[in-house]
């Protein structure tokens, strides 16, 4: 990979010295610290004088501190991080005339896009890892619980899924920065896509499901289940839903399915098995595997698309 290392290094140092990244990092670090701290304090108070179950540690990530939990925060704002790191990756260089200079050096063309993608993924991973580590430390201080191997394993899986999820939006942003000449347009377009897939797809799925089951009486259990099924199937189009279901199951060992409560079988609901006893990590992994695979596929497809377009693009065109 001629040129990869040079470009990768330059991209990393650009990210580290950019205000965009510093502001974002400060913001995310602050929010997650406060959230985890509040959640930890609440839990410490609630559990005072009691033996703390080992799963309590993970609740730091899922319990709402200041109105939302850390997991929810990453779900909403993680994509923004990806978009911010990628929306001007190629078109800025094209506009400033540095892209053709770069490409007239003896490097492979794909080194440019590979290095830019990898550098941004590195930033994402560093940021997430830092947050998770800091919160882990904070949790040990506030709660006095040391995470066991199981909890650590869950956090690692959570970390990997989150990096893939944010990298998906990074790949989308890079694709748009290749397709669109203007930086402002690619920024807006990537925001629009994010809003569409994160919010409107689930709203749309809901509307479609409702209209398909409209003629059934509202309290017909079969119709309710059918509606939930349709909604669930359509929501797969939304990376946010895929990610939410996957991470909720990973960080919460008592969850045993990525499906909604309504869709779980009658017997299972009755026995309340869903809420008794935690699931071992490997079982949880098995449950979320389809979601993870789907997320990885989406990311790979987006990156491959940018790769193909970039490799074939006329240097003076657009």
């Amino acid at each position: 990979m001629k040129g990869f290392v040079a470009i990768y290094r330059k991209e990393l140092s650009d990210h580290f010295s950019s205000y965009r990244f510093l502001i974002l990092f400060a913001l995310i670090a602050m929010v997650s610290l406060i959230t985890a701290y509040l959640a930890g304090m609440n839990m410490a108070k609630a559990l005072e004088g009691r033996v703390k179950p080992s799963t309590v540690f993970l609740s730091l990530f899922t319990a709402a501190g200041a109105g939302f939990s850390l997991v929810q925060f990453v779900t909403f704002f993680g994509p923004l991080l990806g978009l911010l790191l990628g929306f001007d990756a190629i078109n800025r260089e094209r506009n400033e005339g540095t892209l053709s200079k770069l490409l007239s050096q003896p490097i492979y063309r794909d080194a440019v896009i590979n290095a830019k993608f990898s550098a941004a993924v590195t930033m994402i991973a560093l940021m997430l890892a830092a947050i998770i580590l800091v919160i882990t430390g904070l949790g040990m201080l506030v709660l006095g619980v040391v995470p066991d191997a199981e909890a650590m394993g869950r956090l690692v899986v959570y970390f990997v899924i989150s990096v893939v999820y944010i990298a998906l939006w990074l790949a989308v942003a890079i694709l748009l920065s290749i397709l669109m000449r203007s930086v402002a347009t690619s920024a807006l377009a990537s925001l629009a896509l994010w809003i569409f897939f994160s919010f409107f797809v689930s709203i749309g799925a809901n509307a479609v499901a409702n209209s398909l089951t409209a003629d059934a009486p509202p309290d017909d259990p079969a119709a309710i289940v059918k509606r939930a099924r349709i909604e669930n199937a359509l929501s797969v189009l939304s990376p946010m839903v895929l990610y939410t279901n996957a991470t909720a199951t990973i960080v919460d060992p008592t969850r045993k399915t990525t499906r909604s409560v309504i869709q779980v079988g009658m017997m299972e609901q009755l026995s309340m098995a869903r809420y008794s006893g935690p699931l071992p990590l490997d079982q949880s992994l098995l449950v979320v595997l389809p979601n993870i695979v789907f997320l990885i596929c989406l990311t790979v497809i987006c990156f491959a698309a940018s790769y193909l377009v970039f490799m074939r693009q006329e240097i003076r065109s657009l």
Partner: protein
Amino acid sequence: MAQEPIIEAVQLTKVYNGHTAVDHLDLTVYGGEIFGFLGPNGAGKTTTLLMMLGLTEPTGGTVRVMGLDPARHPLEVKASIGYLQENMGFYRDLTGRQSLAYIAELNGLERKIAQERIQEALEAVGITAAADKKVVTYSRGMRQRLGIAEVLIKKPRIAFLDEPTLGLDPEATNRMIELIKDLCRRHEMTVVLSSHFLNQIQKICQRVGIMIEGKLVAQGPIEQLAREKLGVGDRTYTLEEIYMQYFQEH
């Protein structure tokens, strides 16, 4: 002085959405010469250079640079060509020296060699004093000089200079002309120079090519073109006269 060809274009053609920018161009550049590439705006000079570099794919025809097809051997070709773009861009937040170091790294130069070459190049173009200032603070001419330094640190066998003296002050222009001559003489570098300053071209180029609307209308040593077009014997002529003659015929 004409030796063996180092760049050969045969029937080279480029069509941009139905508009023919370069039209069946036959062009030969010989090793070690300074070739002047002339033509009105939009004639297709830059497009031709881009195709010879392998940055733009030809619609038809072939190019060989040192016997290699730039589309098949992009790295070899790009490693031996230093390209000065017509509207060159810079990373604004890097200093001049850092920009050069980045180019050196992309070319796989060792750090120590790179540092020597950077110093040499900075001195050659006369921006040593500003080397550690950010490129944003550079004037138009200083950027132009930095662009030339970026070509120099590659020590290329061939240099494509698209409007190298644009924006330079008279002293720097003269220095640039001397520099190009010197590189050619001492390092046997081949230079393809595209410019609208005909008197400069006349001073340093052995051969010129005149391109109009995508077609190469003339190619050869300046004296030869003068004989053919102006029919002069010993009378002094300028390249401008020759150029205008071709231009009016089209």
